[in-house]
């Protein structure tokens, strides 16, 4: 093996692709979730949507709020998961981009732009910013990228404190809540969130199950070698950053409506860690994981509402436990259970069938 071979052979293992080793554990998430009887799935989705639309008419405002929050987090996690799970890049500026959405919308609404218009506006702005933040992806690998993006993200939040005349600084700002005629503000917000969530899930699912998702996974798993397939690795990495930023900011705009009052400290590490929990509890690289992860996080938030430190401990411990015991997240647990009961011999992962990228190829590369 000549030196140059080794450079190429080892590139994906040191690159972002293999860094997300736990993501591999989610193998099959895409095909399991994606194929199958499409009609039945469509019906299930429509029924679920109808039920969700009915909620504000039957449930109390607390439940509506909790559901809204779950959906907002789920939207944001779809974006984060796209970046971490599907493109294999550890960009940690997600909380800041979420903040850009929240502030961008709140500030522009204050200047008379209708809320619904601010959603895509904030999204596009954040997407551009995310591409700039993601640019180090060209040169940085693995956790260096993580540190650079974390630093930039924190700097953005600091900037929000700085820009006191516009944002109200550390003290925060009030958000004008948009309302549909003749219903309450919180119900209006809920409906917007529901529509956006449905759109987000529908579109990302389509994109990820098609050529875009395939190429993204190739870039994640093959790293620079993807170039030899005629795919620009750089372009896809940046697009992943941009898209995740767009989705983060869209979720952020909704979050500001939901909270009605925002301040920079909301978007620090104490938001980033739950965001990571949502991705990993849901299962990085899965399709429906974000919903599961978000629901889980909201439950923790609600359970440990007034307990301050306990809530932080819970997050820290949950993150650690999930990473240590369930690298594929909760959805992988569901899959394992389902496969073990209904799966055919073909679907089941028997140790006898070779699994590349585990001991075999890894051992080859080590030496």
């Amino acid at each position, binding site marked *: 093996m000549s030196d140059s071979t080794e450079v190429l052979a080892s590139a994906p293992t040191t690159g972002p692709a293999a860094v997300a080793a736990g993501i591999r554990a989610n193998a099959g998430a895409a095909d399991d979730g994606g194929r199958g009887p499409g009609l039945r799935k469509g019906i299930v989705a429509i029924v679920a949507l109808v039920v969700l639309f009915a909620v504000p008419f039957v449930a109390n405002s607390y439940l509506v709020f909790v559901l809204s929050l779950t959906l907002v987090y789920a939207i944001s996690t779809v974006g984060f998961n796209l970046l971490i799970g599907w493109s294999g890049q550890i960009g940690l500026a997600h909380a800041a981009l979420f903040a850009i959405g929240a502030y961008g919308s709140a500030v522009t609404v204050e200047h008379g732009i209708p809320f619904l218009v601010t959603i895509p506006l904030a999204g596009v702005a954040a997407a551009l910013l995310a591409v700039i933040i993601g640019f180090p992806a060209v040169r940085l690998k693995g956790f260096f990228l993580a540190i650079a993006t974390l630093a930039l993200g924190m700097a953005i939040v600091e900037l929000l404190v700085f820009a006191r005349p516009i944002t109200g600084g550390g003290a925060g700002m009030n958000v004008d809540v948009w309302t549909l005629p003749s219903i309450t503000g919180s119900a209006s917000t809920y409906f917007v969130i529901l529509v956006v969530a449905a759109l987000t899930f529908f579109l990302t699912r389509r994109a990820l199950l098609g050529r875009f998702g395939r190429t993204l996974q190739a870039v994640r798993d093959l790293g620079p070698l993807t170039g030899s397939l005629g795919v620009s690795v750089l372009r896809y990495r940046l697009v992943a950053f941009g898209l995740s930023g767009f989705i983060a900011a869209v979720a952020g705009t909704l979050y500001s409506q939901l909270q009605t009052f925002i301040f920079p400290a909301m978007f620090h590490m104490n938001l980033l860690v739950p965001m990571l929990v949502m991705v990993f509890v849901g299962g990085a690289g899965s399709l429906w994981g974000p919903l599961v992860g978000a629901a889980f996080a909201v439950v923790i938030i609600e359970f440990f509402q007034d307990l301050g430190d306990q809530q932080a401990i819970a997050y820290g411990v949950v993150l650690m436990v999930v990473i240590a015991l369930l690298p594929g997240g909760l959805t992988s647990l569901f899959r394992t259970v389902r496969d073990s009961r209904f799966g055919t011999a073909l679907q089941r992962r028997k140790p*006898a069938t070779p*699994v590349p990228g*585990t*001991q*075999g190829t890894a*051992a*080859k590369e*080590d*030496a």
Partner: protein
Amino acid sequence: MLLEIEDARTGYGGLEVLHGVSLTVDEGEIVTVLGPNGTGKTSLMRLLSGVLPLWSGRITFDGKDLGKAPPNKRAGLGLCQLPEGRGIFQTLTVGENLDLGLAARRASGSAAKADRDRVLGLFPELAGRLDQSASSLSGGQQQMLALGRALMSQPRLLLIDELSFGLAPRVVRDLFDVARELREQGVTLLIVEQQAAALRVSDRTYILRGGRNELTRNSDELLASDELVSSYLR
């Protein structure tokens, strides 16, 4: 018998690469395993050093079953490997690289010093470069350093993977001379090679083909016959 491999099978993932290889090495012998690339030589080395798991068969070293002992344990037993591609640490100095050979056996100060002197006696070229960065050495010198480091651990059996890798013929000859000298000093060697020049220094030769034993001969017999070229370049 120092090393005995009986019908060993191993591979990567689900793919079997060695389909039952057997060989023995006696104390004080130099044994060569010859074969073109892709015949399982390197897998054999990885199996012996514990990087690849033994699927079936048996490996005994000095009467002890090696079983699942991890690489650093095996080094501690005196089964020392000179890795493929030399494995010199470029960020360390020449002296530090040499002393890494002591990691397997925790030698004390004076014994370590004696070992170092003995090794530098074999490779005088290295003696003047102890404080240089290892990356400044030529290919041949790096191979000497790798050999020297292996000797620091006082191996009972030294496994050498491709001594000739990427080296000019003259350098290869010098290194094989060193191998002969080592035998005089009581080190047993198992050399895995693609270049048949190794036969000149070894007692016995195994030729592998397709992950199986193809033929076993005394080295000089093999050199004298035309079996070598016929079994090798076909």
